[in-house]
């Protein structure tokens, strides 16, 4: 019917041996909101990078307004009217709203008073619904949602015709998300095209006209939103064969409580949580970013401030106030950000692997090199880390191998309870599968594993019990037999039927 403003056909992109995109098609019409969905690693970000000019090493055809283009850099793409709002805000906190809007681009003269800037910024702020915001105030006085809107205003000020919004609501509450969605709708009505990327399927259904689905770097088609429902979309996103990545679950839930979480109230949760964990089970905490699942894990590990609560571990009540105390009680915690506090990137792999267990491999505080070698070699073998690379800096490893080191180092203290936040973030499919296998083996050998994840597959296929979290609340428990992708997805995105899907 309409002529698409942007049309991509048969685009492939590979990095070395990895094919990130395989003959992908994509298009968007004027004034359309196009949802772009897919699992982590499905190729969404690669596609977005190509569209917005960050990556031009692709094969295939990219047409803008009917002409074939190939952008050398993002600036050129922006000049052609394609602008992207990244998931992480790129605003400068101590500058005014107006200054942030005109940060880049040649819209304003080199010298302008803040008053002049504010006047010029006003129309753009109005366009995104921030009519009551004074453009001369510092941007960090705004809420995160409003800051996202300012970022969108900045894109509009650059005369963008195609806006790419990468998870604009990931860190926002319901109310602010709603505000963003309304704005997106309004901007689209004014004739601009919007590529909307989100893991929140409810949003996708609410605002998009069509949905482009990617799975493992392949197009699964562009489908009218009307013709889809949550179940069919999830099935298209995940595919079926992916179940094979996961180890077989045990047939019944274990009944030997090792850890009881009593009235634990970490920062970031709305109310205290209570639950029990059985010895040798894998318990999944499902929830999106900001749901509080990760905070519960961090609190159990003593890595996060709590308001109240305690743990009962093996019948003994205690509450670690630092990771050091948790480690002494054989509770290991692997955070979701391995670069920040999971790995010593500049140090060799071997030192990383033995870092929590220096006391184990030493006598009177003095280490013997051969003991350490042997010890870390065993750990590396167990976790399928290349033994020849033990003396390399861990920062040189790929994401998957880094994650194996970050996780594997905790085996050095033979933990009773292993807490893992996002066990496979930024990890390729092969390494993912290895990590799942290893986690199941550990559980079979009596280690209790609790993990938090935003990855719906992982939550569905790995654990035998799941607790779902939504916006700081523990919603409900799923037993072995009622773990289903669709019902969990519902519980972590829209448990109170707020969107009436």
């Amino acid at each position, binding site marked *: 019917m309409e002529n698409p403003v942007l049309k991509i056909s048969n685009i492939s992109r590979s990095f070395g041996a990895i094919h990130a995109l395989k003959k992908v098609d994509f298009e968007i019409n004027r004034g359309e909101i196009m949802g772009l969905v897919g699992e982590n690693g499905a190729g969404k970000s690669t596609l977005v990078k190509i569209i917005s000019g960050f990556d031009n090493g692709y094969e295939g055809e990219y047409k803008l307004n009917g002409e074939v283009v190939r952008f050398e850099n993002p600036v050129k793409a922006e000049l052609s009217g394609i602008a992207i709002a990244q998931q992480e805000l790129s605003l400068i906190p101590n500058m005014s709203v107006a200054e942030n809007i005109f940060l880049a681009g040649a819209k304003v003269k080199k010298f302008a008073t803040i008053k002049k800037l504010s006047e010029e910024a006003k129309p753009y702020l109005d366009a995104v619904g921030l009519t009551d915001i004074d453009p001369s105030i510092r941007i960090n006085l705004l809420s995160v949602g409003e800051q996202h809107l300012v970022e969108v205003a900045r894109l509009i000020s650059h005369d963008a015709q195609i806006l790419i919004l990468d998870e604009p609501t990931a860190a926002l509450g319901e109310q602010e998300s709603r505000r963003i969605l309304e704005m997106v709708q309004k901007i689209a009505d004014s004739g601009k095209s919007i590529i909307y990327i989100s893991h929140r399927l409810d949003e996708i259904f609410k605002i998009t006209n069509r949905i482009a689905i990617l799975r493992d770097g392949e197009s699964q088609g562009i489908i009218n939103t009307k013709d889809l429902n949550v179940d069919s979309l999830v099935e298209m996103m995940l595919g079926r064969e992916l179940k094979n990545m996961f180890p077989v679950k045990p047939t019944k839930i274990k009944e030997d409580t090792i850890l009881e979480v009593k009235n634990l109230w970490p920062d970031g949760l709305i109310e205290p949580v209570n639950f029990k964990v059985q010895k040798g089970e894998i318990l999944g905490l499902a929830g999106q970013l900001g749901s509080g699942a990760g905070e519960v894990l961090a609190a159990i590990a003593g890595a996060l401030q709590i308001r109240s609560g305690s743990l009962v571990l093996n019948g003994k009540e205690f509450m670690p106030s630092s990771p050091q105390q948790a480690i002494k009680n054989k509770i290991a915690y692997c955070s979701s950000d391995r670069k920040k506090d999971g790995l010593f990137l500049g140090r060799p792999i071997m030192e990383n692997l033995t870092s929590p267990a220096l006391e184990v491999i030493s006598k009177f*505080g003095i280490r013997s090199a051969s003991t350490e070698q042997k010890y870390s070699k065993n750990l590396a073998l167990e976790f399928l880390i290349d033994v020849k690379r033990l003396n390399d800096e861990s920062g040189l490893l790929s994401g998957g191998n880094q994650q194996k080191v970050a996780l594997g180092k905790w085996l050095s203290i033979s933990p009773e309870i292993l807490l893992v936040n996002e066990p496979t973030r930024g990890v390729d499919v092969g390494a993912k599968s290895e990590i799942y296998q290893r986690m199941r083996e550990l559980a079979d050998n009596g280690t209790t594993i609790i993990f938090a994840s935003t990855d719906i597959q992982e939550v569905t296929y790995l654990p035998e019990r799941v607790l779902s979290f939504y916006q700081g609340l523990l919603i409900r428990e799923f037993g072995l037999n009622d773990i289903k992708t669709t019902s969990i997805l519902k519980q972590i995105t829209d448990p109170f039927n707020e969107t009436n899907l």
Partner: protein
Amino acid sequence: MQDLISSYKKNLLLSILLTFFVLLFLYGIFATNNYFTWFNFKTIIRDAALYGIMAIGLTFVTLSGNFFLLSIKETAAICCVSFAMGMSTGYGVESWVGSFPISLLVTLLIGCLAGAAQGLFIGLGGNPIVVTLGGAGILYGIATWWTDNLVISFRRPNDAEWLGTGSFLGLPTITWSFILIAILAEFVLRYTNFGRKVYLVGSNRAAGKATGHENLSMAIIVCTICSALCAFVAVAFAAQMSSAQANYFSAEFGSSGDMTILVIATVMVGGNSIMGGYGNTIRTSIGAIFIAMIDNMMVLNGLNSGPRIVGVGLMIVFSILVFALYAKGSRAQE
């Protein structure tokens, strides 16, 4: 070939430093009078020993990611007057006058306390620069207050001479101390759990905390080590001069005129990472000898203190530049 290039790159700074060493040495032998003599050699390693020992202490602080102590010369100041007070007045106790062990013990204790206090505040989250600037003021103030800013001298012969001016097998005692301390420090860093923790916490403090190695105890220990070694140097220096004054380490010392800058330069010129987690005391020792050699060369060529201070400044800038380039090339960025 690849290996050769990577190993060269890996040790780029060290290679450059060693090349400079050789050039300097050749220049010294052929173009400078009185350079290639046993006496001059002893002068060089004696100078290197004094700030080398302090720099080894500071290496622990820097490696552990706690940046620098800016109170080095002030710690040394209070320690050297404390030692001189002990030797000359016995801290008011008649029978302690001139007692080397008691003066040494009291001085080391003061050094350790000063270090531990600063380490405590740094470990609790204080900015190392601010904390130690404050510490510097307090320590120097106490030192001048205590002595009315006078020179405290104690008569020769005394029990401390063996440390100040004595020698063993032809080398000054202080040089032997430097060698022993360097070996001991390197052993601690390489083979003990504490040493490993220094590197781990220094390379990533958040990951250190997550694996149960807190920076609080780390900061206290490394600052105490550094200050204790400052105290030791201060004692040796006071023993050498048979006197002490609070400003000995600000005005009269070495080439740079400022002990703190000289010690920081020593750590940096050797190529230890300012951000922590990378380096060792061998680098520091080489840095100390290198600076001493250049300074010595400048003295023999008749330069007075102004240009020599410029020389030390240039060395710091040079080493920071090379290290920045080096770090950019080698570390995994992803």
